[in-house]
């Protein structure tokens, strides 16, 4: 199996797991789902710069500054930003979960809990 297919599958699995958890009814589980989704998204962005092994974008003298000799630095930078932002937002959502639990007495995502 080719490396491309492998990583593609990896991202796919993470996405599926995230989506499933995202659709749960308890906020904490939803947070878990969003974490998985953010893993998937980060890897997605990262792989958009294609696969490069052993070519960290740290410039050495004499090495031609091309994508054949270095990994694409731009997606990496974007992923860094994405990681930080999703980190912050996860914190906010967790705080909301805690506060919501304190307010409602349950941690269902909807105000009036299960209505089934």
């Amino acid at each position: 199996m080719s490396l491309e297919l492998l990583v593609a599958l990896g991202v796919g699995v993470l996405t599926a797991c995230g989506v499933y958890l995202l659709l749960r009814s308890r906020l904490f589980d939803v947070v878990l789902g969003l974490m998985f989704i953010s893993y998937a998204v980060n890897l997605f962005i990262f792989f958009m710069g294609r696969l490069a092994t052993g070519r960290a974008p740290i410039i050495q003298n004499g090495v031609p500054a091309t994508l054949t000799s270095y990994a694409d630095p731009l997606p990496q930078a974007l992923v860094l930003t994405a990681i930080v932002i999703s980190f912050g937002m996860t914190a906010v959502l967790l705080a909301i979960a805690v506060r919501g639990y304190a307010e409602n007495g349950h941690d269902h995502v909807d105000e009036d809990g299960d209505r089934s």
Partner: protein
Amino acid sequence: MNASLLLWMLLLPFAGAVLLLLVDNNHRRRSAWIAGLITIAGCVLLAVLAAAVFDGGMVRFRVDWLPSLGVAFGLRLDGLAFLFALLILGIGALVVLYGAYYLADDDPPARFYAFLMLFMGSMLGVVLADNLIVLVVFWELTGLSSFLLIGFWRHREDARQGARMALTVTGFGGLALLAGVLLIGRVVGSFDLDAVFAARAQLQNSPLFMPILLLVLLGAFTKSAQFPFHFWLPSAMAAPTPVSAYLHSATMVKAGVFLLARLYPALGDNDAWFWIVSTAGLATLLFGAVVAIFQHDLKGLLAYSTISHLGLITLLFGLDTPLAVVAGVFHIINHAVFKASLFMAAGIIEHETGSRDMRQLNGLWQTMPITATLAMVACAAMAGVPLANGFLSKEMFFGEALAVDTHRLLTFATPIAATLAGIAGVAYSLRFIHDVFFNGEPVGLTKIPREPPRFMRVPVEILVVVCLAVGIFPAVTIAPLLAVAAQAALNLPGVEKLPVYSLAIWHGFNFSLLMSLIALAGGVLLYIALQKKINLHTITRLPGDAKLLFDVFIDNLVVVAGWITRITQTGSLQRYLLLILIAAIVAGVAGVWLAPSPAGSTAATTAPANMIAVAMALIGMAASIGAVVMYRQRLTALILLGATGLVVAMTFVYFSAPDLALTQLLVEVVTIIMMMLCLKFLPAQSAPQKNSFRHWRDAVVAVIAGLGVTWVVYQVLTRPFNSISPYFLRTAVGEGGGANAVNVIIVDFRGLDTLGEIAVLGMAGLIVAALLRNMPMQNTKLGAPDDAKVPGNAHRSLLLQIVAALLLPLAVMISIYFYLRGHNLPGGGFIAGLVFAIVWILQYVAIGRFNVESRVNADYATWIGWGLLVAGLTGVGSFVAGFPFLTSTFKYFTLPVIGAVPIASAMFFDLGVYLCVIGATMLVLSRLARVNDPAGQRQPERTP
């Protein structure tokens, strides 16, 4: 000169309205005076402008308004506009005077007159508009202001309903009219009346003519209460009588027929117009007349008679001959005059007797003879009795009805219908007189009837005099006005082009006279018959109440609306997310589907996966799937999540992204800590979800999404790639001053992203702090927190304290090291900040919050502030050198151990990041740590 006068005539009422809104409601007379003077001033202006109009000219005002729409704010005062302006202002003045006596003590006069002025201004706008868009604007304004007027007695349910109904029906018509006007604009290419008139042929030949005609007529018919849109008018009778006298004689309803007259030159004179307008008019004429007989409420009778007369006018315009148009214009004047006086008379009666019910009001002749006389004359005019103005226009109408020969069927139908309507008209006029002033004694009145105050009667007297004057000496009184008005309505170059007609009372003995006689005689007979055979008073169920239908319709509309709303707004987050997910999948699939050629892979060289990679992948997938399977055991799920995160970090390492790996690792640690802290508070298990269908559905969606993403990633990875990135690699060292391209991008090439990013992180910290501050704990099942594990509590292990103490300086060193080398090697402000934060939280665990916070400034919010400030100022710093925001400059220094360190402005920027990260992370962690720590809840925030 004249032009500006015209503008003033229009603006005065609006100015008056504003002025009146400022007047205190307690000064009753004052507001009446203001309104009166405004109206009279308007009349004077009109009189000044009269000369120009009667010379066959036209006064115009024009100023640019919506240039690219070709809409100028244009006003025109031609004959037709003059006639209507005269009615609006003249009768308006009388209504103002009348109202001053009519209003009760607890009716706020200022508000009343303000609304009245508003309405008057809007009406003037409609009739003066020289541009169809402008006309629509004022048209809608009449709707709005009449809404306020009809609902004036807002505490009364029927008033509120009547107002809403009028607004709804006429508003509906207004929107239709707007659509029609816009279509006219599309065909003609302009909204100016002259252009529209000029493009008559073009309009009537265009394929859009039918829709245009229908839409415009919809507007006209709803406004002028044509069957089947008539029902709003009777329920508008809940308005104070002065309002009814104004709206339903001279203004509101007349706006509809005005529109017919105004657009007749453009849209009239063709079969479609003839059939639609004349049938609508005919139906309304008969319907109104018949229903009017059976009303018990005085105003109800007048309302339906109004409907009938509007039908008559509409029919005249529908008959589509120049003479009929003349007759129509003539009847507009006459009806306005006698109907206004009748409403006022009815109002006087109500005012003096406290009732409008003809089953109570009888024999008022004894108590209020003068009013009675006036009312009778007006009624005569309404019935079309000779010597009253109504007679003349009715004669012309009969004449025209007879003249219909173009269409076989109507040749007979029209005259007969006209006569029948005439008969009914006489009958209800007769009932008005007989029932109110004679026919025995009053029944159960609350007041003793007497004549009204002198000045309350004046308006009626004036109007009645006009009725007679016009009726007896038409040639001297009305002829010139009628001539110019009709000329404008027919859009003729000059008066002399008008068809020949005579306003004489006596045309010799002809058919129309015969019809009049039949009508009179028949009417009398009919009324007597009705009174004898079926006593009208006993009739309780009144025919023709479309109002109920309307109410039912609206109620159902609301029900349906609520139903739709409930479907779209389930209030269930899960449904919403599912919807978004499906939409996203559809979007993705559709995108690929709609592509011109299928997105088959252009197979680039693919490397085979080695064992390490495969193993790594398998571990990751196993961990994540495990987490999903075990998700209800939150701690387990959390651990598995962490494992997955580690694999992700490994992936970054494997694919040569050390910075990402480090960051991912640290973020992972902090996130897990956060979630652990939350789990101390939240239930450790998530409640089971019975609904297994849901599980399967979600699973299916999830799998589809996963496959989709897999496919896309594979597609992209197997494609050749060229991007802007080589530029970064080339310039990182030379111009960015750093060997670590990623970090250079972060702090330099895309510094703005990073600035936003730390702003987000900072806000996250603030929000968490705000949210977890003094939370309500009563809802929670939380007992005394398990002290040992809660960071920042009493007894702790000595070992941990020692470790932490030793670790601290080392960790700080590491963090600074990361910070400094960031520009050239993996590291940088963010990573450094996280390292610092992690060690710091360890201190919390080890020696407790209070001990920690007593050692350093623990108001982390200000750390965030400093971070943002430093980063921002670094960016602004480059302004000094005259360079754009965030332009970096650098110089190398060599430090021991660390090696060459670039003192780049980017470093200061990174310092901002560093501070912001520490502040935000610590704010979050310390807050979460304190959630279920009662001491923490009590402990106030420190500020330096």
